[in-house]
């Protein structure tokens, strides 16, 4: 089973990288970019075939390592097959 995990900064947490990207887009002539937030995208391949077990394991992985929940949120997407 394959999972896609998105790790994003919580609202209110300053994202200087996002701000720098926003400025660079402005410099390239892209007007009207009102905000950029940068995050992480992580793909995880699992041997597990039971969906519920996979979801539980992925949630633990996010809380223990993949995200720092002081500043980050995470969202898990699991492939159907």
């Amino acid at each position: 089973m394959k999972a896609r995990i998105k790790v994003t900064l919580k609202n209110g947490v300053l994202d200087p990288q996002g701000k720098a990207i926003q400025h660079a887009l402005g410099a390239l002539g892209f007007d009207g970019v009102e905000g950029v937030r940068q995050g992480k995208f992580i793909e995880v391949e699992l041997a597990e075939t039971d969906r519920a077990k996979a979801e539980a394991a992925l949630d633990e992985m996010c809380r223990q390592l993949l995200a720092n929940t002081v500043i980050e949120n995470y969202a898990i997407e699991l492939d159907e097959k």
Partner: protein
Amino acid sequence: MKSAVIVFPGSNRERDMLNALEMISGTRPAAVWHADSELPDVDLVVVPGGFSYGDYLRTGAIAARAHIMPAVAKAAERGVRVLGVCNGFQILCETGLLPGVLMRNADLKFVCREVMLETANADTDFTRKYAQGQVWRCPVAHGEGNYFADEATIERLEGEGRVGLRYAKGDNPNGSINDIAGILNERGNVFGMMPHPENMIEELNGCTDGRALFESVLEAVA
């Protein structure tokens, strides 16, 4: 004072730390490899600076889950003093031994220079040889030193005197909240700081302002 310095792949300040500790305590510290699972019997454990695991995922994230870290946490529980410097501070935050997180410097630049520090609380095991409010010189070298925690945590840290060190007014190199440079855990035996006192030890460094930090621990464990 018996001490140990934890070494990870990518640590690069462990030699400076070993030398500083030996010079001040008169006893050669043990260097402990991250893959070990036991610590020698020591009074102080130091997590040194560097770029453990290349800062992959987040600074300190992988090192915080290294084999040796449960032993460091257990030592902290027993009351052993634990000091994290720079990447060591980031690692201690990632393990949860200290609250909060060190984020990317507000201006996105790696900063390598000397700053002035202010001893915000001289009544700790790590700062007692400084005077309250004493301003002293110390180098910093980091890209992620921007201390952040939620409002309630900051309020607690401030209210409980757990901000040990601040960047002196106008000399905050990374945008950290309340100019925080170093914080204590609740019990007062774990301290994390971004600046490098181990590099302000010898006259050859041009300044010896960092000595008092190690002398503080030396006195505290005596």
